[in-house]
C-alpha cells in the first residue's frame, strides 16, 4: 500500500521533470511563487513576465553561451515558507541552479537562509537566489549572503526616494504612516520616520500604526483616525486586499491628499481604484512604463500585451533579472558553476530596456537604479493596468536612488 503510493511519487517526480525538459541545452530558472491561493494572480502574472522576458530577450536573440536557451520552470509555493523549501529541494534535484522568487519577504527570508545552508552543505550543486521583489531591507543587510541578489529597490531605498519628493512639497505638514503588522510594514514605518526626520524635521508625524495583516475587514475606523489627525499625506506599504481596503476607505470617506504607496497597482488593484484614485494615489517603484521611455520599451510592452491581453508588466525589473543573468553567464562562461556567475553579477553595470542604468552593488548585492514616483491616472497613459483605462504615469524620478546608502552587510565570499 505505502510502497505503491511512494512509487507513484517517484514516477510523478520523474515525469514532471521530463515534462519540462524540452531540450538538452536549456538553462533552467526555477520560479518559486504562489500559483494557487489568494496571491496566485500576482504570481501567475510574474511568471508570464518571466517567460516572456526569457523568450524575447534571450532565446529570440540566440541564447547564451553556445546557443543555450533559458527556460522558466514554475513551482507553486502557495506563499508558504514550508512549501517553498520543499519546492526549492525539488528544483535543486532537477539540476536547476537559479531560483527566482519575489512575493513575500517572509518566504524570501526562508529561502535565502535555506540556500545559504544548502550551498555550505552541498558545495557540488550550489544555487543562486534571484530576488526580484522581496524588499525587506534585512535581506541585503544583516541577513545578506553571497548567493542572494536583489533586483528591486528595497523598502529603505524606495522610502529615501519618496521622502526626497515629499520633502520638496511644502504643503505637506502632517504625515500619517499606516502599515501591515509584520517585518515589511515595520521597515516602511521606521524608514519613513528616519528619512522624514532627516529631511524635513518640521513635518509632524501625526500617526504611525500597524494593523493586523490580511485580517482587517473594514478600514473605516482607521480612516476616521486619519481624518481626525488632519493628515496632509498618508504613507503605506500595504499590498493586496489590505491596500484596496485601506485606499478605498480613505478615499470614500473624504480624504483628498496624496496617498503614497508601494504596491497600489496592477493585479486588480488599479481597476478596483479606478476613478476614485486619480489625484491621490501615488506609487513609488522602479521601472518606467508611462510615458514609454523609448521605442524598444514600447514595442516590448506591446508584444507582451499581444500575448497576454489580461496581463500587466507590473514588475519591469524582471527583464533586468533575465538580461543581467544572461550577461553574467556569458561573462563567466559557464551555466553550471554559480560562483563565477555570482562574481560576474557583483558590481555589474547594465542598461535596462526601460532606458535606465543599473548597478548591482558589490557590498550587499542590492541593485541601485532610478526610482520613480508614479501617479495613478487615466490621462496620458499609454499602457494601462488591468485593462481599466487607468495606469501609472511617472511623476518624478530620483536617479540612482540611495547609491551611497549604508549597509550592515558583511559579505562572506567563497
Amino acid at each position: 500500500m505505502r510502497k505503491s503510493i511512494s512509487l507513484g511519487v517517484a514516477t510523478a517526480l520523474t515525469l514532471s521533470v521530463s515534462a519540462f525538459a524540452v531540450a538538452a541545452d536549456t538553462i533552467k530558472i526555477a520560479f518559486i511563487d504562489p500559483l494557487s491561493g489568494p496571491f496566485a494572480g500576482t504570481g501567475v502574472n510574474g511568471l508570464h513576465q518571466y517567460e516572456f522576458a526569457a523568450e524575447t530577450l534571450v532565446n529570440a536573440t540566440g541564447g547564451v553561451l553556445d546557443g543555450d536557451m533559458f527556460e522558466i520552470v514554475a513551482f507553486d509555493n502557495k506563499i508558504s515558507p514550508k512549501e517553498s523549501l520543499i519546492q526549492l529541494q525539488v528544483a535543486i534535484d532537477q539540476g536547476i541552479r537559479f531560483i527566482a522568487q519575489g512575493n513575500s519577504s517572509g518566504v524570501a527570508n526562508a529561502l535565502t537562509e535555506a540556500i545559504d545552508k544548502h550551498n555550505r552543505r552541498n558545495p557540488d550543486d550550489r544555487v543562486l537566489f534571484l530576488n526580484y521583489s522581496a524588499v525587506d531591507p534585512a535581506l541585503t543587510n544583516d541577513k545578506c549572503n553571497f548567493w542572494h541578489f536583489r533586483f528591486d529597490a528595497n523598502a529603505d531605498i524606495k522610502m529615501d526616494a519618496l521622502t526626497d519628493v515629499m520633502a520638496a512639497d511644502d504643503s505637506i505638514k502632517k504625515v500619517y504612516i499606516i502599515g501591515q503588522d509584520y517585518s515589511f510594514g515595520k521597515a516602511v514605518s521606521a524608514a519613513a520616520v528616519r528619512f522624514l526626520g532627516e529631511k524635513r524635521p518640521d513635518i509632524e508625524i501625526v500617526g504611525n500604526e500597524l494593523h493586523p495583516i490580511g485580517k482587517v475587514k473594514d478600514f473605516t475606523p482607521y480612516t476616521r483616525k486619519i481624518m481626525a489627525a488632519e493628515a496632509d499625506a498618508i504613507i503605506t506599504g500595504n499590498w493586496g486586499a489590505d491596500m484596496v481596503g485601506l485606499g478605498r476607505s480613505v478615499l470614500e470617506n473624504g480624504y483628498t491628499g496624496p496617498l503614497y504607496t508601494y504596491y497600489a497597482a496592477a493585479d486588480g488593484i488599479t481597476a478596483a481604484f479606478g476613478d476614485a484614485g486619480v489625484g491621490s494615489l501615488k506609487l513609488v517603484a522602479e521601472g518606467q512604463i508611462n510615458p514609454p521611455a523609448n521605442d524598444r520599451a514600447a514595442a516590448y510592452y506591446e508584444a507582451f500585451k499581444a500575448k497576454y491581453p489580461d496581463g500587466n508588466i507590473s514588475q519591469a525589473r524582471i527583464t533586468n533579472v533575465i538580461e543581467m543573468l544572461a550577461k553574467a553567464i556569458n561573462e563567466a562562461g559557464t551555466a553550471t558553476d554559480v560562483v563565477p556567475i555570482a562574481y560576474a553579477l557583483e558590481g555589474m553595470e547594465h542598461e535596462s530596456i526601460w532606458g535606465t542604468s543599473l548597478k548591482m552593488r558589490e557590498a550587499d548585492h542590492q541593485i541601485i537604479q532610478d526610482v520613480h514616483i508614479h501617479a495613478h491616472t487615466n490621462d496620458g497613459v499609454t499602457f494601462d493596468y488591468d485593462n481599466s483605462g487607468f495606469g501609472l504615469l511617472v511623476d518624478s524620478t530620483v536617479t540612482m536612488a540611495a547609491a551611497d546608502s549604508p549597509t550592515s552587510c558583511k559579505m562572506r565570499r567563497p
Partner: protein
Amino acid sequence: MDLILVNLIDGLVTGLLLFMLSAGLTLIFSMMGVLNFAHASFYMLGAYFAFQISLYLGFWMGLLIAPLIVGVLGAGVERYGLRRVHQYGHVPELIFTFGLALLIEEVVQFIWGKSQMAYSTPEVLQFTAFSIAGNAIPAYKIFMIFISIAIFIGLLWVLTRTRVGMIIQAALTYPKTVEALGHNVPLIFMGVFGVGTALAGVAGVIAGPVLGTFPGMAFVLGSIVFVTIVIGGLGSLWGALVASLLIGWITTFSKAYNLRMEDLLIALGFEKPDVIWDSPWRDLWSLTSPQIADILPYILMVLILIFRPHGLLGKRDA
C-alpha cells in the same frame, strides 16, 4: 465627541452586517445542531453572483436575484449533502461543511479567477449622505443600515407572527416534539437552511462593494460569525443581534482609538524598562488596541464559554 458618533455609526454598520450572517447561522445551528462552516462561503457566493448579475442587469437586480440563487443552492446543499451526512452524526456534518467551504472557495477561483472583482456600489448611492466634523458618511452605509434593519424586522415578524415561524420557534426548543406532532421537519430544515444561506447571500451582495469581492472574503469573515452566535447564545435571534452589535462596536472603537498597553502598565505601577528594545517584554509594552482589535471577539468568546456556556441570551448550552 463627534468622532464617537461617527464611530458608533461605523460600528453599527459592521455589527448589522455581521448580524445578517449570524441570524441565518443561529437559526440553522440551533435547529439542526450544525455549525455550518460554509456559511460565510454563501456570503461570498452572494457577492460574486450579484457582481455577475450587475454586469448585465445592474446592482438592484443583483440584490434581488443573487440571494435567491444562493438560497436555492443552500437548500440543495441541505437536501443532497447535509441530510446524507446527518446519519453519521454531528462531527461528520461539521466536517462536511468545512470541506464545502474549501470547495466553494476553489470553485469561485475556478470561475472568476483569483483577483479582486471590480464590483462597486450603484451610482445612485455614490454620494455623501452627511458629514460629521469632516468625516463623510457615504449614503451606501445608510442604505446598508436600512436593509439590515428591514431584514431583522422581517425575520422577527415571520418568526413571531406567522404559523411557519411558530413551528420554527417550537422546533428550535423541542425539535423532537415538533416532529412527533407531524410536521415535516426535514422540509423545515431545508427551508431554514435555504433562508439562512439566502440571508448570508444578501449580506454578501451589499458587503461585496465595500469590503471587496475576492476569493478570500469568506475566510476573512469565516469564524467570526461562529464567535458571534456563540457569544449571543445559540438559537437566540436577539442574542445574535446583541453580540453582532457588541462585536461591531468593540472592534470599531478599539481600532479607532489608540489605547496603549504602556499607559495601562504605567497606571498599574509598573516601570517601563529603559532599554525597551532589548527587553523580553517589549512586545507587551508596545501593544496597542488596534493590534488586538480583531482578536478581542475570540477572547470574549473563550471567556463566555468558560463562565457562561449558554451565551449572553441563550437558553441552552453551546
